[in-house]
């Protein structure tokens, strides 16, 4: 049974995401020691520095999605099932930094599909970041997903593709306040459908998240230092999902 990490990375005109990817890959190699496959486009691939033994799959991505008015290329995640070469895949956002090997435990499970349903706000020190607003279903976090090559998982990814295709309709149906395509919402809808409107299986714990209002000042060997308002904080040996994209400049 093969296991590996799958990452999607596309530079936008404004953010050099390949620099985030380079840091993410370095940490995966150091702490998870798993095989890595990167899905990217030719333009982004050319900008990446050599990162050792990594598999690359080049695709042509869509460039019409936005976040906060800026280009945001992340609509290809539904392809993860078909593009993954692994029996068990750890699908990660590239802004999730593995400073521990905690995720390895999740690969030892027999569950077909696991995703976070809760996030932990590191800045405020409590559970938070609920984006439901008027949404009729709970919103999940598609930042860390564990999936196996099974019919059940294939149906989830096929459903994400369908949701993406009819995004405005599903936004309206579920009363989502977010009109641009977002994987967190698309997966929430898809899982809800495929699971027969019943709760699926979740990852234990909460997704540790450094919110957009926190600025990463520097990276250390085993963590990072951030500023929030007038306070300086430090994370050590703790996985973290960083939302502030200015980290590409650190």
């Amino acid at each position, binding site marked *: 049974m093969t296991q590996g990490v799958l990452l999607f990375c596309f530079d936008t005109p404004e953010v050099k995401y390949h620099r985030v990817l380079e840091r993410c890959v370095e940490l995966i190699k150091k702490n998870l020691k798993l095989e890595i496959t990167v899905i990217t486009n030719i333009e982004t691939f050319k900008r990446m520095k050599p990162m050792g033994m990594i598999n690359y799959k080049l695709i042509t991505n869509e460039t019409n999605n936005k976040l906060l008015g800026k280009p945001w290329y992340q609509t290809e995640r539904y392809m993860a099932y078909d593009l993954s070469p692994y029996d068990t895949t750890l699908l990660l956002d590239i802004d999730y930094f593995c400073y*521990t090997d*905690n995720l390895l*435990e*999740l690969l*030892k*499970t*027999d*569950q077909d599909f696991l995703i976070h349903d809760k996030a*932990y706000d*590191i*800045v*405020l*020190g*409590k559970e938070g970041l609920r984006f439901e607003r008027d949404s009729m279903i709970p919103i999940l976090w598609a930042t860390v997903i564990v999936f196996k090559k099974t019919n059940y998982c294939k149906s989830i990814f096929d459903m994400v593709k369908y949701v993406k295709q009819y995004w405005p309709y599903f936004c309206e149906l579920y009363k989502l306040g977010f009109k641009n395509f977002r994987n967190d919402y698309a997966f929430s809808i898809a899982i809800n459908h495929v699971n027969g409107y019943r709760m699926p*299986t*979740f*990852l*234990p*714990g*909460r997704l*540790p998240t450094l919110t957009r209002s926190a600025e990463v000042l520097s990276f250390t060997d085993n963590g990072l230092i951030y500023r929030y308002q007038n*306070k300086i*904080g430090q*994370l050590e*040996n*703790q*996985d973290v999902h960083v939302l502030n994209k200015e980290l590409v400049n650190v």
Partner: protein
Amino acid sequence: MDIRDLKKQADLSYDISVAKSNALEKALSRQQFAYEGHLFMANAETICLVKTLKELQQSPLYILDVNQNPVEIKDPDEFLDMLVKRNQETLNNYNNLYKELQKKI
């Protein structure tokens, strides 16, 4: 104490409280633990349950994982040993961080 000192004290208390919460969260995330293809939390509840069941009945034991799936525990001694080790590893780290935070008060 004037109001500036009180504000400083309030800021310090807040910072320590957040740092403590983060240290605990770090410990809890480390308590996620796979056994026989199922996920568990190596917390006091799981340890107490397994220890109690082990004392009251012979193996195998049946318990629920974090997603409420039933699991047969064929070797409760081994499982309990792993739970305790993981739990104490995480709480030892938490304790060290907690001591450092206490020094700041």
